[in-house]
Every structure is written in structure tokens, then in C-alpha cells.
């Protein structure tokens, strides 16, 4: 049971929810950029939500199903077709042996996710199936997928109940946008911003530049200034940390960020809104809205409760 890559995409890697416990060794957590998309399609298929998925950029690969499979797509919309039949995101589909999955156009977003019922057979490194491109390890041979690569499935037989088309509806699906206002909590050096820069930060929008990848998104806008220059010794940074570079421009650290950094930490994107950032690409714009830590935690908890509720509902449907 497997799929095979017939045509290579630009950057398709195996990811899960990341590798935790090794930041102190300089090993970053990595994982899917849009974690909620990866989790939702896994939950929809009845998988463990941390099951490995394929993260694709556009142009995305062409995939041949070598055996019957049930799969789902989420995140970006790349105009997916199964044997020329249009597919929707957040819905499970049955693919017969020898069917072909193609992506025909970049309709929205920058990272699409693909998961199969039961999950892919991937050897874990340090507890995770995520690809670490810097260290060239983890995921599929530590690299992006190439033509003729074959990914096996863990589950060998498909249950009849799994063949129905299930669809996720409701508030759990992120409302993606090419110009989102994302919620952030203030960072350690936020107070060091000049009053006018502080206002710029939450009133202006910033453009995502070409210089953006899985490590971080470089922003461009009115430069921000600090009251006094502060040299920082390196300390930990995180997925979503917004750093201020010496030229007054900001960078948002993304999934493959380094574990530590020394630039002033202006703010951190809230966990709940990271998926909105993850779907942005060059020339998209972003604005920031500062909220309290309590609000950020509560929003996160509310989403986790809803996700658990969905998980429970789907488990009942699949195993009744």
C-alpha cells in the first residue's frame, strides 16, 4: 500500500507536529507550518492527530495511488483533482488503485496538506516524523520528495465505513486571508519600542517579502525604532517570535526557526493564529493586534476543546 511521486513538486516534505525535547541540543522542533490543517485532516480520517502528513508548496507533486486509499487535503487550495474530478479541502475521499492526484492551480494559500487513513509509514527520528532539512534527517530520508519516491501506508486494509465522504464543518477551519490581522502577545523588548513605533506596530500593515521560507518570514514596512539599542546575548526563541532586525524591519520565526537568537523580541504570534501566518506568501500583507496572555490562552483552550469534541464525534462515526 503506497503512493508514488510521478512529478516532483517544488518543496514537498513529510511533517508532523514537530520534535519536542531537543531544543536544548540546538535541534529545532520543525513540523508542519500550518499545524491546525495537519491536525484537522488527520482527525477527519480517524488518525492520531500527530500522524505524519505531506506538506506541499505550489507547484505541488503529481501523486499516483498504487493501492486503494482514503485520504484528505487541507490548508492551501491548489485546485486538487483526483482523475480530473475536482476535490474540496477538509473532506475525506476514497481513491481507487491507479488513480492520480494532481494540483492544477494556486487558488489560495501557500501550504497544502495531504494525509491518508492510517498514516504513512515513516521511521521516526527523536520521536518525530518531521523532516529536518538543515540536518538532512527525519521524514523521508531527510529531504524533500523527488520523482519516483514511494511512501508506504501503515494501514493495509480499508474498512467500509472509512470510504464515506466525511467533511469537517464549522468554526474549526481557519479563516485564511491574504491580509490577516493576527493576534500577538507583547514580547520582552516591546517596551523598548519608541512610542511612534509602538503605534506603527499595531496600526500599520507589513508586507511579506520574497525572502521568506520555512525558517522565517521577512517583513517590510515603516521601520521600527528602539528607544535605545539593546545588545542581547542569545536566548531561546519560538515559532511565531517576531524579532526586530538592526535595519528596523521585522522577521517572524516559523517552523524551522533556529532554537536561539539575539535580536529584540517585539512580540509573539498567538498559537491560535499561527496557521493564518503559515499560509501567507510573498507580497501578502499582515497586521498585528496585541491581546493579553490570558486572552491568548483562553482562545487556544477553546479551540482545543472544540477539536477534542470533533475527534470524539468522528471516532464514534468510524467505529460505531
Amino acid at each position, binding site marked *: 500500500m503506497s503512493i508514488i511521486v510521478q512529478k516532483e513538486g517544488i518543496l514537498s516534505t513529510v511533517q508532523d507536529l514537530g520534535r*519536542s*525535547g*531537543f*531544543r*536544548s*541540543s*540546538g*535541534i529545532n522542533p520543525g513540523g508542519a507550518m500550518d499545524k491546525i490543517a495537519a491536525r484537522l485532516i488527520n482527525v477527519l480520517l480517524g488518525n492520531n492527530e500527530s500522524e505524519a502528513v505531506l506538506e506541499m508548496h505550489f507547484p505541488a507533486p503529481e501523486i499516483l495511488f498504487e493501492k486503494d486509499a482514503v485520504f484528505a487535503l487541507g490548508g492551501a487550495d491548489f485546485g486538487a483533482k483526483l482523475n480530473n474530478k475536482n476535490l474540496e479541502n477538509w473532506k475525506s475521499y476514497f481513491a481507487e488503485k491507479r488513480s492520480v492526484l494532481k494540483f492544477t492551480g494556486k487558488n489560495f494559500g501557500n501550504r497544502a496538506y495531504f494525509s491518508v487513513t492510517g498514516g504513512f509509514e515513516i521511521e521516526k*527520528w*527523536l520521536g518525530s516524523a518531521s523532516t*529536518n532539512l*538543515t*540536518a538532512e*534527517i527525519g521524514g523521508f530520508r531527510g529531504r524533500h520528495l523527488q520523482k519516483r519516491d514511494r511512501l508506504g501506508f501503515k494501514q493495509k486494509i480499508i474498512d467500509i465505513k472509512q470510504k464515506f465522504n466525511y467533511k469537517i464543518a464549522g468554526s474549526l477551519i481557519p479563516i485564511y486571508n491574504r491580509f490577516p490581522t493576527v493576534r500577538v*502577545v507583547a*514580547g*520582552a523588548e516591546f517596551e523598548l519600542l519608541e512610542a511612534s513605533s509602538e503605534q506603527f506596530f499595531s496600526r500599520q500593515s507589513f508586507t511579506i517579502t520574497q525572502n521568506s521560507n520555512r525558517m522565517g518570514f521577512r517583513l517590510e514596512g515603516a521601520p521600527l525604532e528602539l528607544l535605545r539599542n*539593546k*545588545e*542581547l*546575548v*542569545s*536566548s*531561546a*526563541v*519560538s*515559532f*511565531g*517570535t517576531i524579532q526586530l532586525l538592526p535595519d528596523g524591519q521585522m522577521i517572524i520565526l516559523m517552523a524551522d526557526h*533556529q*532554537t*536561539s537568537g539575539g535580536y529584540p*523580541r517585539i512580540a*509573539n*504570534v*498567538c*498559537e491560535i493564529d499561527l496557521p493564518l501566518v503559515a499560509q501567507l506568501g510573498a507580497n501578502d500583507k499582515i497586521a498585528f493586534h496585541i491581546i493579553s*496572555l*490570558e486572552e*491568548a*490562552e483562553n482562545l*487556544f*483552550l477553546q479551540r*482545543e476543546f472544540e477539536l477534542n469534541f470533533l475527534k470524539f464525534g468522528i471516532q464514534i462515526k468510524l467505529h460505531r
Partner: protein
Amino acid sequence: MSHKIFSLGDNALTIEFGNEISVELNDRVLRLVEVFDKRSFTGFVEFVPAYSSLTIFYDVFTVRKNFPEFSTAFAAVKNSVENALESLEAPQKLDSKAVEIPVCFDRESALDLDSLAVENNLARQEVIEIFLSQTYRVFMLGFLPGFAYLGEVDERIAARRKNSPRLKVPRGSVAIAGKQAGIYPLASPGGWQIIGRTDIELFTPNEAEPTFLQVGDRVKFHSQNL
């Protein structure tokens, strides 16, 4: 001694003891790691020790469930940290490992040794001697898997970062930036001044402990002739 505790996003907090490279502050960081190693809290995910700070990642869902008396997970973890800080023992010698690392200083490996010597008005051999004369401490790991930040390098051989970073620093390169030294475990872009190379495997991904060096280790370099 004073400290600051601030959030790093909505699932981590940092305890900052200061903003400098000093053995005393770093010792404090490591002692706090020891306290939590022995007695962690429910919902703890991982630590990131740095020069003068410790960052703790936690699972908001679990912390909130287990500490309902706090209005945020941040407040609960902060409380736990403050209790740990109170019980922090008086300075005592940390249990650290001594490590020997052979370095080759030939011209092929020591890409910036000559220019660094000129910049510091020293002979090439003097730079090597000063560099080898000292024992370095691993203050933290970061940047790349297994990349150790070592200090402190003698003022006389301290070096500015390169104006434009190299696109590919060879694996095993031993390098200096400011009063820090480091070893590149993997080939990578980098702006530090390269003074030699080692064959030691600093990153062994298939072992349970994937890095050769750990925070707190004492490193002594010696010259290796090829």
C-alpha cells in the same frame, strides 16, 4: 540575585538572570535546570538553557487543567519557577564533563586564521597558542543541531563577525566571533572567523544523546597535526 520572568508567546516563559556572558549567571541557569530535572511540574514540555536565561516550554492545556487556581498557565508556571528559585542551593561546583577536542590548524582548514592574526597584530602561531591555552565552557547549544557556544575567548584574539557570511562553512570548522568560540557540527552558512577544523563528530543523529557536547561541559582544544 535579581531576575526577570517574561512570556515567550503563549506557551513558554523565560527566566532572565541578566544580559551578559558570565560563568556565574550561566551556573544559575544550570542549577535551575537541575532543580526542574528532579522535580518538574505537570505540563512541562522542555527547557532551553541559554547564556544567562532559561526558557521553559509548557503545554497550556495540561497546566491549566492541573493548576485551576491560577488564571493563566503562565502564572502557574511562573509560580513554580519562583518556588524553585527560592530553593536554589548556594553556589556549588556543577557536575561537568571535561572534553578534549583535537583541532587541525593547517591553511586549508583555518580559512580566516591569517587575517585574524593580522587584525589582532599577532603572528599566526601566537593566535593558536593563545587559543589553546584556555579551557572553555559550553554556555549553551543553539543555531544548529549540536552547535555549542564556548567562552570566553581571550580578548587578544577576539574577532568581529565577517561582513558577509560564508554561504558554506565546512563541517567541523572551529570559529571565533567576539569572545565566543564555536564548532560547526554541519556544513552551514555562517559568519564566524574560521581558525581550524576538527574531525570529532559533534552531531550523531542516530544516538540517544545526539550531540557530543552538553551545556556545562569544559572543553580543551589541542593541536592535531595531519
